[in-house]
């Protein structure tokens, strides 16, 4: 049922765009509460050991200082008393408890917080806090400790976990293939580094009532976490995250600085604002873990895959277990009858990683899609051809049909748009002046997830509608997409609709993560619109008796009017019905969850990325000249914001391929790249024009709008597209990211 054919898919400007371009959008550190104080977190300078003492005398003497709080004097978080950690970490193990005891588990760990009446005073006093340590020997070197990798605890608990060793056919069948190769790949730690520094403003309104303006990806999960920590009723915690300045996954976990601010606010009885420094962003709020991978792959002479074996070891902290689906793509992307995967973790004396955009899948796709390219070269087959030959028409892992899969179309369009026909099979075959020209491709996939959510809608007497959801918007344009979905399903123009989000007072929504927001919250918007239409139809006979006994299917809801579809002149405005019933508003709350039907299908989004790179043979400089990305992500609700999201993923992929590298000095267990001058991310000059194409065919198995997630597939497969293009240009196969010039000369 489409009423506003143009609304879904329309490249409408963002509904919150004006707030963003005028500086009026408020992020977590930008609420000026009365009597506000400033907290600055003091970090440990050792990687492992115990704090012998904290000398805060000088800091306390400094002007404006209100408190110096550490494990020596912090109030006890009640939820920690009888339980190791009351929150359900999104990972495994136990998150770090701020100021709980004198243990230091990683360099940069928060060990104290200084609260003062101005930011400058707090910052200065924080430099005066002196800690004495009993240092213990730390292990932070992944390569040195690789042999100590362990089976993840989640697998020990649940042998059926998706992270358990997997075998279809024979895991090592590749070893006897007529054409085969084995290769190891290394992915360094990468740090999310959203432009907004992690920030929280915490305020205890009453002894048992907490408000936080917090940079998180979910207001409801955060509300629950803090309610558990402080043993207060969940409705006594209010989490506000109206604007989130990027997160890319690092807001999917509550971190120690948040609890530190809440402890401080409780102790000083004032609102406390904490904004981490850029350096602290490297040590306290997660990162994409250092990962080692090995692939064995084999095919017959014609290029039919006969075996894939994929093994990965990911880094985690010593106190918390972080896992991700690094090996998933290898299980279902290609037709090989023999597949084996093995996933292990290596706990080190470092802070806990957290999902970073296209999380493990992007890491895994780097290895898998590189290996496919290497195999294509060994077989002397075009990599496009090799992928099409081994395309899976059903999910070989789950033995289920795909809900939808248009990857072949994506590959065909992408190959054409990048000018694949110009590519030479032999590396170094194309030149442009001094530069070597190469073309490469990489495929990405990510589960098309949908969760449960509820949405409220209020139709007001002036004809406008206000929707509410606790969901956050970290940048994709959630509010805009929801307005478009609501407009289409309620028959009201987008200008009349407001979508309020980012507040735990609003109806339930999960974290914004895993590319699931549109499918999850959008479905709840549809359900709420449906419920509202039912209510309107119930009320309609009061305005015109001819509406009596009609069903929803008999009625058209368009331009804020109901009309009888077969006699469109019988028509009444929504607002008229409110008047007739003496209502100032019509309030509808509806929840929605995935259907049973969906479980009969395997549901994934797919993407393919094509890159053209130029490599300077003398300097090793790599310039990405053009990227073409094609996505099979179901219905595209807003082509403008969706394309932007794809471009963002490509940008992240360029960083992953060529620049991003969190380098640790293992003598101290501390990153030496700890700001944006040393940790390189793509800037304007690194990002060429990016062409984005969408298949734009609905998948109604996943959700009623037909959407599938987009955020992750935007980056998954980009890095190998670039490294494969580098190989095509130079004949050099670099298996350790990032591909910096030194590796090419």
């Amino acid at each position: 049922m489409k009423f506003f054919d143009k609304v879904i898919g329309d490249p409408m400007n963002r509904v919150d765009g004006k707030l963003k371009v005028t500086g009026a959008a408020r992020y977590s550190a930008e609420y000026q509460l009365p009597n506000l104080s400033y907290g600055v977190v003091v970090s440990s300078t050792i990687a492992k050991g115990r704090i012998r003492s904290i000398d805060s005398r000088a800091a306390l003497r400094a002007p404006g200082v209100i408190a110096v709080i550490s494990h020596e004097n912090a109030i006890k978080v009640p939820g920690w008393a009888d339980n190791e950690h009351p929150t359900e970490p999104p990972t495994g193990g136990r998150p770090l408890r701020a100021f709980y005891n004198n243990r230091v588990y990683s360099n940069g760990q928060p060990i104290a917080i200084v609260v003062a009446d101005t930011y400058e005073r707090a910052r200065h006093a924080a430099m005066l806090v002196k800690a004495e340590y009993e240092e213990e020997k730390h292990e932070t070197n992944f390569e040195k400790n690789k042999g100590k990798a362990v089976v993840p605890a989640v697998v020990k608990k649940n042998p059926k976990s998706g992270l358990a060793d997997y075998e279809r056919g024979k895991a090592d069948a590749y070893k006897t293939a007529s054409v085969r190769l084995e290769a190891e790949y290394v992915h360094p730690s990468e740090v999310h580094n959203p432009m907004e520094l992690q920030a929280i403003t915490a305020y205890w309104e009453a002894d048992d009532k907490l408000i936080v303006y917090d940079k998180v990806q979910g207001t409801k999960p955060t509300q629950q976490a803090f309610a558990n920590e402080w043993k207060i009723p969940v409705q006594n915690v209010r989490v506000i995250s109206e604007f989130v300045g990027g997160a890319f996954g690092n807001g999917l976990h509550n971190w120690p600085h948040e609890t530190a601010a809440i402890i401080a606010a409780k102790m000083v009885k004032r609102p406390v604002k904490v904004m981490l420094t850029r350096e602290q962003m490297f040590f306290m709020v997660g990162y994409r873990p250092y990962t080692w991978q090995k692939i064995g792959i084999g095919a017959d002479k014609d290029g039919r895959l006969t075996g894939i074996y994929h093994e990965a070891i990911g880094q985690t902290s010593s106190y918390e277990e972080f896992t991700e689906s690094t090996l998933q793509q290898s299980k279902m992307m290609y037709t090989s009858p023999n597949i084996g995967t093995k996933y292990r973790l290596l706990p080190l004396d470092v802070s806990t990683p957290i999902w970073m955009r296209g999380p493990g899948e992007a890491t895994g796709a780097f290895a898998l899609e590189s290996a496919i390219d290497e195999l294509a070269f060994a077989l002397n087959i075009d990599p496009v051809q090799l992928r099409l030959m081994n395309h899976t028409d059903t999910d070989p892992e789950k033995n289920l049909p795909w809900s939808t899969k248009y990857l072949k179309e994506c590959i065909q369009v992408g190959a054409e748009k990048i000018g694949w026909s110009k590519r030479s099979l032999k590396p170094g075959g194309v030149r442009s002046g001094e530069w070597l020209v190469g073309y490469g491709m990489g495929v990405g996939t990510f589960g098309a997830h949908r969760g449960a959510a509820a949405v409220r809608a209020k139709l007001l007497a002036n004809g406008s509608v206000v929707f509410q959801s606790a969901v956050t918007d970290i940048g994709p344009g959630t509010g805009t997409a929801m307005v478009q979905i609501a407009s289409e399903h309620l028959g009201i123009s987008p200008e009349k609709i407001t979508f309020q989000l980012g507040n735990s007072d609003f109806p339930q929504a999960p974290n914004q993560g895993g590319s699931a927001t549109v499918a999850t919250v959008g479905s709840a918007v549809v359900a709420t619109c449906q419920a509202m239409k039912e209510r309107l139809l119930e009320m309609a006979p009061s305005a015109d008796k001819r509406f009596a006994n009609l069903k929803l299917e008999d009625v058209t809801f368009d331009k804020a009017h109901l009309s009888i579809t077969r006699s469109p002149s019988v028509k009444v405005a929504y607002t008229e019905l409110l008047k007739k019933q003496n209502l100032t508003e019509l309030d509808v709350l509806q929840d929605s969850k995935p259907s049973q039907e969906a479980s009969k299908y395997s549901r994934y989004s797919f993407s393919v990325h094509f890159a053209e790179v130029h490599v300077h043979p003398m300097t090793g400089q790599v310039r990405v000249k053009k990227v073409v990305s094609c996505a099979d992500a179901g219905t595209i609700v807003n082509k403008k914001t969706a394309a932007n999201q794809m471009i963002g993923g490509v940008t992240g992929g360029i960083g992953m391929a060529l620049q991003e590298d969190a380098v640790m000095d293992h003598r101290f267990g501390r990153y030496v790249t700890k700001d944006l001058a040393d940790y390189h991310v793509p800037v304007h000059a690194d990002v060429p024009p990016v062409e984005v194409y969408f298949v734009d065919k609905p998948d109604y198995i996943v959700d009623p709008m037909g959407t599938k997630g987009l955020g992750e597939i935007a980056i998954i497969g980009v890095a190998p597209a670039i490294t494969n293009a580098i190989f095509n240009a130079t004949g050099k196969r670099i298996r350790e990211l990032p591909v910096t010039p030194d590796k090419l000369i």
Partner: protein
Amino acid sequence: MSKINSRDQQSGESKSDSRRDFLKQSAVLTGAVLTPSIALKAAEAQWDEKLAEALEKIPLKLEVNGVSKSLMVEPRVTLLDLLREQLNLTGTKKGCDYGQCGACTVHVNGTRVLSCLTLAVMQDGRKVTTIEGLAEGDQLHPMQEAFLKHDGFQCGYCTPGQIMSAIACIREGHADSEEEIREYMSGNICRCGAYPNIVNAIVEVKKGGKKV
């Protein structure tokens, strides 16, 4: 390692201590001849704090978005923190505080400046324009319009800095080609990766020929 650290931390303390002690003790408690009870009262009322504060602050005149301001600020306050924390102009963003990201870009006397690397007191008598000062009432600046139209942002956090830089980029005459724009906008990081859209917005404004 821990040795080096504790040395660093100590030297920080001793400097500050002597300065504080001078201000707090000699200036108020010993400098003026006080009986113990008056001294106690003075301490309770935090006179020392207030005096120290008064001594530490410097008068500063700024025109911010066309409004003249007479302020008293500590010399160590950056223009960025002054705007965000004291003037409630939070449109200017802090993305690094080290001059590496461009999120804090504002115009001082019409040219772009990283406000995190700029001490407020050094701008005495100058004109500061922030993102909040671009629109004329409801009428957005052409660059703001172009960012909206080309979707030159996602999360919006780098956006004020990008827009302030973009305007300056045209004013400086560095927007003659996409290549040149990319080069002269490279001090403004967008981690969401909206770069191509930002470049398109700048190209359009430049081509539009309106005064920016």
